């Protein structure tokens, strides 16, 4: 019994490690680049999983909150000279307040309104955020230079960036943080309960509206962490985060609702898959197709092989 449940629990992680090792032997650069990039996808995907699993809202403005976070990090850097990684803390708090505010003003009104209305609303928020960023910062790309972000090492003839390992570190840290929050804190346990059964949560005395507000706020705030680590390595423009909405959604679909570890595993697996395609000369443009192709394949396989509880 023990060994079976152990196998079940760690099976996916073992597969992932095998995958990375196999790819590393074949295409070492793709393995490392994919691991780094995939962790970043996971970092953006984790909070979407939280809002979708607990609040039950598909937030189409997810990636735009990421862009906004990136601009706020940029502003801290330009105006106060603050290091992007240091600015994560104030940006986390600012985005929490912003997310909670937007939630309170708009999303609470459509919680009972059906999925289509919710999608339309968050799509509208996405458009507004995008336009506001365009107005304030224009579409001219900007960047923040920090010297440590461009360091790289060469191991066995393969050259890769070292800064990007921070994506992996932050993704794992956020994953662990969220799991501790959900398991160990009263508010986290309440969120876990609300995600499973909102009505059940109400009748045990949980203030579900408050849980939704906090969870939405935290989800947007976590994008501030992603923003902080991204800024040193990314050109900044208003739609820089846009593609992360759908990518995050893919990860949630692959991992299954409520499976946070699965987000990290799926993120890295897709990141590696994407990196392999990009490494084939002439096929780099196909990488997005891989992302969504793998998603469709996984969903199809899963619906054929019914999951057991």
């Amino acid at each position, binding site marked *: 019994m023990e060994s079976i449940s152990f196998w079940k629990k760690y099976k996916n992680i073992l597969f992932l490690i095998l995958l990375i090792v196999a790819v590393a032997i074949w295409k070492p650069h793709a393995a490392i680049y994919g691991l780094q990039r995939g962790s970043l996808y996971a970092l953006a995907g984790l909070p979407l999983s939280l809002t979708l699993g607990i609040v039950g809202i598909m937030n189409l403005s997810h990636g735009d909150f990421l862009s906004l976070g990136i601009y706020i990090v940029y502003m801290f850097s330009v105006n106060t000279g603050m290091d992007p990684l240091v600015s994560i803390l104030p940006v986390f708090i600012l985005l929490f307040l912003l997310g909670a505010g937007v939630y309170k003003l708009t999303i609470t009104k459509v919680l009972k309104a059906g999925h289509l209305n919710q999608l339309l609303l968050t799509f509208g928020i996405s458009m507004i955020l995008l336009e506001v960023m365009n107005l304030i910062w224009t579409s001219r790309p900007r960047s923040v230079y920090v010297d440590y972000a461009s360091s790289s090492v060469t191991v066995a003839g393969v050259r890769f960036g070292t800064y990007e390992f921070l994506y992996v570190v932050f993704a794992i840290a956020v994953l662990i943080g969220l799991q501790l929050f959900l398991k160990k804190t*009263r508010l986290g*346990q*309440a969120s*876990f*309960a609300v995600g*499973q*059964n909102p*009505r*059940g949560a*109400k*009748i*045990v*005395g*949980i*203030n*579900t*509206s408050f849980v939704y507000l906090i969870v939405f706020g935290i989800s947007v705030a976590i994008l501030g962490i992603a923003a902080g680590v991204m800024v040193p390595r990314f050109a900044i423009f208003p739609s820089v985060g846009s593609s992360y909405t759908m990518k995050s959604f893919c990860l949630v679909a692959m991992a299954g609702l*409520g499976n946070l570890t699965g987000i990290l595993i799926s993120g890295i697996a897709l990141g590696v898959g994407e990196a392999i395609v990009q490494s084939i000369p002439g096929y780099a443009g196909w990488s997005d197709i891989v992302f969504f192709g793998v998603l469709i394949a996984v969903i199809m396989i899963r619906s054929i092989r019914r999951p057991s*509880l």
Partner: protein
Amino acid sequence: MLEVKNLNVSYGRIQVIKDFTFSVGDEAIGFFGPNGAGKTTLINSIIGLVRPTSGEINFEGQSLLDRETHQIVRMGISVVPQDGELFPIMTVIENLRIGSAYIKVAREKTSERLEFVFKIFPILKERAFQLAGTMSGGQQRMLAVGRALMAMPRLLILDEPSVGLQPSLVTELFEKLAVIKTEGVSVLLSEQNVKQGLKVIDRGYVVENGAVVIESTADDLKNNEHVKRSYLGL
């Protein structure tokens, strides 16, 4: 303790509860009525899951009408809903613990309450680490009652607890309710199994089409012609 006066509840244009008045004191009362009579609607109005169109609901002198469900529960009313409303991917013990975790007075007594619940339902102790969603229907019902008791309610509301249980389990469950009653908890029981229900209640209301048709003590209900004919099959 609980006073409901001239309550009206509608879903859209359809009025489901009509001018309903009843009260619960330090006693156990029953709502008996056929499917669709409005029993669940009444219970949901009390705990704030459904908003009445007019009327009054007072608990220990305070109106419940403008309160949210979680506030009402924290005032000392617990409910065992018709469909359990458990947390399927939490274990039995986690489901029980969550029953007291968000109610201050109960939280401080969590371990005592757990012992109390385990004494009434030993099966929950045996299965403490099983996921609630994998328990049998009968076991889930016990868990739902146990979880409600964790909150140390002064009023315990049960919505058709006997539905789907084998006859021996129904008898067992009602015996346990009788024990719970002796702990000083007021009980509001909605039931279609009138025969068993009459064993635990002190007073009862027969509810048909959202209105009270008979209000009487348990003994009088047993001898009432309408109750005998329509509910006891005599």
